[in-house]
């Protein structure tokens, strides 16, 4: 659709009363999610990052219908495991920004958070609903856009028949709704080259390379530096070492292996066929 400048200006005038993508100064302040909503949004957040967009949308809509466009903020379990000091209230922006700029810990990169609108926007975008772009701060408009797209006949990509998916012989654990797997085993199963670096003294792994090893390439994991680096910059849930085993989010490895669809069913990880597993 082409717009004249004047029409565009009028549309924008209306639009800006509702939402803005890049922040207006001060930003929009959302109501805080209660415990129930926080759990659902945490699950939705993990679902989105693991590629389960429908589940993420389902959870976000459920929260939206009960509590509106709320904001959940929490300390991921990996932070609680590694950080030895007292963690502030995750909604305490001042304390968290303060810890970052005073050099105590990069807490702004450690705390996780999501809004209903943000989760919906990104999940619908993941499903190919481009019309929701920029509407995460105004859920009614976002949902209207989705309905309009459905009316026009848009359907998101269909999953391969689940009966064709196969289980992976891979143990896993779940943390904050993220599926974590031992990196060496998982790489074997997925056919990915993997190389660990071990500390000479402790014999514990402190670095991990996935894919072809390239000299001087930054390792995936530097255990000692997780906190200093703020952990989850790339991965929504960072890799960590425990008892000599490096645990890494499965969704990230699956992506490296070219796997688009996977799920956890009956205590096993199932992957859709023809997705690059060997």
């Amino acid at each position, binding site marked *: 659709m082409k717009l004249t400048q004047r029409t565009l200006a009028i549309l924008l005038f209306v639009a*800006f009363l509702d939402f803005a993508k890049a922040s207006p100064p001060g930003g929009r302040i959302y109501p805080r999610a209660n415990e129930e909503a926080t759990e659902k949004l945490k699950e939705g957040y993990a679902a989105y990052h693991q590629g389960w967009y429908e589940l993420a949308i389902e959870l976000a809509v459920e929260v939206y219908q009960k509590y509106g466009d709320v904001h959940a903020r929490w300390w991921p379990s990996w932070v609680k495991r590694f950080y030895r000091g007292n963690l502030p209230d995750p909604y305490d922006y001042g304390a968290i920004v303060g810890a970052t700029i005073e050099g105590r810990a990069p807490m702004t*990169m450690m705390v996780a958070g999501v*809004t209903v609108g943000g989760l919906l926007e990104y999940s619908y975008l993941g499903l190919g609903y481009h019309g929701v772009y920029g509407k995460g701060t105004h859920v009614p408009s976002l949902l209207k856009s989705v309905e309009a797209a459905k009316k026009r006949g848009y359907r998101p990509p269909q999953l391969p028949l689940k009966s064709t998916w196969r289980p992976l012989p891979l143990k896993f654990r779940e943390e904050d709704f993220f599926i974590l797997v031992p990196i060496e085993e998982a790489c074997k199963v997925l056919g990915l080259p993997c190389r660990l670096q071990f500390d000479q003294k402790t014999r514990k792994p402190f670095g991990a390379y996935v894919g072809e090893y390239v000299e001087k390439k930054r390792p995936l994991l530097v255990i000692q530096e997780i906190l200093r680096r703020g952990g989850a910059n790339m991965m929504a849930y960072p890799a960590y070492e425990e008892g000599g085993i490096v645990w890494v989010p499965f969704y990230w490895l699956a992506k490296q292996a070219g796997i688009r669809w996977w799920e956890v069913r009956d205590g096993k990880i199932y992957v859709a066929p023809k997705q690059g597993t060997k």
Partner: protein
Amino acid sequence: MAIAPLKAKAQTNDPPPSGSCYVFSPSSSSVVEYSRRGMIVWEITPTSATDYDFTPWGLEENFVVIVGWTDFMEGEDRGEFGYSPDGYSFYPVNNPEWVNAYRPKPGFVGVLRIAPILDDIPIGIYSGMPTYDDDPVIGEPWKMTIWEFWITPCPYNWRPMPNATGPSFTAWIEPEVDHLGQSMGRFIAFELFPSTEPGECLNSHFLCPYDVDGVFDGIELHGIHDNDADLQFPPYLEGMYVYGQWEEDEEGPYVHNFTFAVTQQPTTIATVGTIFCFDGGAYGVLLAYTNMPEGIVFARRTDTGLIEPVEIPYDKNGNFIADVWEWNMGIYPADALGDFDNYPVGDGTPGDGLSVYEEYRGLMVRYLWTVFNPWIKDMFVMNFGAVPSNDPNWPFDFVIPNEAITSDMGFPGMGVPGENGRGFWLLNANEGATHWMRHTEGWIPGKIVNFLCGYAHLRDVYAAVIVPSQDNQPELAWTFGPIWNVSSVPVIEIRVPAVREGVNYWNGVGYQYDLLHALACVIAHELGHTILWHIDHNQQVQDGEDEISILTNGDGGHHVYGQHRMRCFMWPYFPPGVVPDLDNDGAWDSLPFPNLPKDFCDSEPGCQSLWRLNP
């Protein structure tokens, strides 16, 4: 009645008139043998003069009168005899008998001889008969020393710098030998009265080199002494004793603040080879003094000719700023509290919050002491995203690379601080002090860059603080407050993963956005909010009641009217130019531009003419 001489002058050998004079000080009731150059020699007192002549009646005494005075000098070197009622004012007189003062030539230094010129009245006092008429004679001279004590001024071209050596100063006494043939050498003392501005510049603590708190990995750790003397003598000066203050702390005793030095031996010349400067805005005065017979005397400056302290640096207008810097900046004489920076223009509001003195004093910019230009608006930024990234697929070494802030494809560009590479400064994290301010989200910490302020401080100046975030509130980025210290602090949260996802999304549909440029755009947008805050938070603007609101639509500083503004950093969506599917027809209402912007909009009024750095 005229009295004729009894005989020819050549026919007698009787003694000529004799007499002398001395200089007496009424205040000290003693004779004066030393006088400072330029002072009136006072009070000249003739001794009783006599003249005896042989007469037919025997030896007869005559009256003697003073017919003139001499200082034994010729031409322009000659001083002037006259009358002074108090030793300070001086009046020429016609009658030599009235003379009680001598005014040497201003430049004269050395041994002075003054004497009356005497003549007799050739009539015997007792006989009343004419006596021999002697020729006028010069009386016995009074010898004294006209001395001067000099000190050199601070060199005009020197300005203070933190932890640097300063100029040398020399004080000396003239003449070297007095009228008695003795040396004029004395103990010469120097005393500094320096500033004690906190730290070594606006944002760096002063580490006292004399207070060693320990050694760590071979590196000496020094105690912080922010309020130490900014100008000091070196602890050791050749031929001098240097004194400081004794202190004691847990590491033991130490001496610091070396501000007094005195020669080890009497001398006519003493040089302080250098002074130490510990502050970029150091100022103070240096006194040199010595002991003359009349008591303690202070040195006279060689440049002004006045007996006054030497100011350091050279500072004729007394604003504690080196005159040379003021001249070089074209602001002499400046008001130290001035804040009139005018480049780039912005909305015409002058200044950046730093006073002239603070711009001159400077601050550490990534460990380098930096002095600012009082005409150029300076803006400061800190990047708390400069932590190593643990992302093997992230093309940068840091979560937020510094280039995303400093690159000319980002904020520092046309019409805003940083134009032509001037006025936009990225600081290290420790180059500001945390200060908490109230915000709707609680107490938010900001970073003040001129926290070690003292003299001529206008207001706290904040650095815009850029912090990476994982939370999707903000969805992309947000700013907590303006660059000036009103209502909140300029803290900016950038959700780096969202920027990356945005770039990936658009590149996935055919665009070719550069990730660094995209980060630079988002950061520039938020930095724009810090300096357009008055537009964003002007209620009239928000309500659409003034003309600017026609352009901004009360959207909080986002300029939305016309294509040109869509190419601006302040476009409210990312990437600039994109307008979402507002009418839900499944198509973008406007697609983003193929190239990301590199500047703020320059239309009138546009971002480039609306921003300011002072509230």
